[in-house]
């Protein structure tokens, strides 16, 4: 049996609610992601797509089942998976350049070993590498001395992507990475990430609630749907015909419609009870 890049084996996740009562978030998720895929995970708010991402990241453990990355069970977040969350992924006290070199530096030098003689020379090499990555994501050298709070949201996410990619992680996990951006910036970022994915060959798992974004970005869409109190399960798992933002509008709309229908199909369990308010 070969090792897939990511293997999710019959995973259940329960969260404690109060005392001994717990609520099931994910129910029997089976997923196999091959190296080099670009998988979009979609679903409605609260259906557990970010939980699934945190399982792959190693930040959370499943209540049942296994999550394997390159054949190893996840214990805690490490350099195997790069991570770009929606917010807070840049260190506010470091300049853009220091943010990008941080990973290279701590991977080679521990917290207290920066006084080694080779440190200065290696740092110069790291800075040069970081500048190349920043240039790739659309920065000039003057911008690299700014602090994160001086950048727009889109620029911050560009730095966050460079910061993660410079370590060449086998897998890149993105959690609603573009959801806080305005539409113009957002489509620019989508093109950028698709371009970077083609060049680097990294496996990307991209969580989003925007189905259209998922359809245009990924090579595969995994849709999660809530199933009442039993937790979410995979409602749809399809390969995406080669689409991008210039594709035929009708084709995109058909795919989006299909995915959105699947994420809602289990919603019949929720009844809208009419409660008399004015009595």
């Amino acid at each position, binding site marked *: 049996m070969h090792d897939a890049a990511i293997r999710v084996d019959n995973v259940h996740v329960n969260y404690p609610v109060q005392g001994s009562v717990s609520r099931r978030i994910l129910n029997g998720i089976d997923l196999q992601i091959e190296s080099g895929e670009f998988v979009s995970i979609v679903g409605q708010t609260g259906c557990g797509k970010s939980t699934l991402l945190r399982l792959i990241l190693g930040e959370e453990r499943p209540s049942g089942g296994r999550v394997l990355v390159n054949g190893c069970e996840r214990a805690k977040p*490490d350099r195997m998976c790069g991570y770009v969350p929606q917010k*807070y992924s840049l260190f506010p006290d470091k300049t853009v350049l220091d943010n990008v070199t941080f*990973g290279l530096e701590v991977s080679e030098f521990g917290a207290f070993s920066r006084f080694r003689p080779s440190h200065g020379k290696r740092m110069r090499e790291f800075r040069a590498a970081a500048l190349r990555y920043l240039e790739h994501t659309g920065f000039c050298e003057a911008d690299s001395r700014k602090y994160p709070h001086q950048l727009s949201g889109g620029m911050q996410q560009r730095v966050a992507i460079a910061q993660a990619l410079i370590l060449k992680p086998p897998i890149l996990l993105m959690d609603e990475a573009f959801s806080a951006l305005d539409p113009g910036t957002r489509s620019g970022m989508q093109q950028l990430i698709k371009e970077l994915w083609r060049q680097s060959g990294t496996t990307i798992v991209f969580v989003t609630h925007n189905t259209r974004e998922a359809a245009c970005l990924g090579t595969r869409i995994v849709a999660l749907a809530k199933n009442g109190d039993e937790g979410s399960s995979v409602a749809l798992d399809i390969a995406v015909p080669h689409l991008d933002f210039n594709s035929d509008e009708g084709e995109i709309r058909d795919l989006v419609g299909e995915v959105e229908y699947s994420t809602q199909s289990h919603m019949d369990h929720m009844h809208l009870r009419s409660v008399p308010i004015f009595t």
Partner: protein
Amino acid sequence: MKFLHIHEHPGRMTASVLSWLLFAVGIGSYFYVAQQRHLENPDERVMPTATQMVQSFADAALKPAADEEVSDGAAPLWVSITSSMLWKDSAATGRRFLISVLLLFPAVLLGLHMAMFPYIGALFLRFIQFFDKIVALSLLPILFIAFGIDELSKIMLIVVGVAPTIILDTFNLSKSVPHEQTVKALTLGAGDFAIAYRIVFRQILPRVLNSIRLNLKAVMLFLFAGEMIASSDGLAYRIALLRRHMGMDTIIPYVLWVALLLFVVDLAMHTLNRRLHPWFQET
């Protein structure tokens, strides 16, 4: 009447006049009443006039202290300042103050580690929370019995009084750093100590310094309490001593001098904070 309208803003001039108004009224009415009382009773001691206060302050700042050997009258200015009562009192108080503030640094580190490492947090948190509720001044007799009435007990009073606040504040500040930062640092290959010191500590440091600035008042409060009760020098000792002689002409300048010193320390820390952390956005 514009006074009670939320939307009315005073102009620059008006705002400036208003902000100084109470100072002018306070100072003016003080000297008016003082003058009236001096006209009635030339030996008035409760409300000294400006001349008396300036004279006493100059004596305190320029003349050699009582226990100092009297040198010839032509000593250079610097020598007469450093042998004066005010200088010696300020130096004694300042030394205790400095030691106490330096002792708050381990408190900051403890708070950071409690927040970063759950085992350390579990060990210390409840204990520190308990200690935080103890009224430090009520410990004063215990401290005097345990440590004697010399320097150590006074410094311990300040540490016992302020350290729990600083520890808990640092703990909360460290906890409020978004979890994404820790996760991101882990995915970048950072180890536990690199995250604690290079990510979290550096981020909270400006806020910790602000928290220490806010607690300078508490430090001074405990320091003064200790000095007034058991000491033979220091600014608070002098104020308490002069109370017995009704020495208002020295007490009032001393109180203002203490306020000025505290203001300068606070301003210096604020400026340093700004210089060291240009990225810090005060909210």
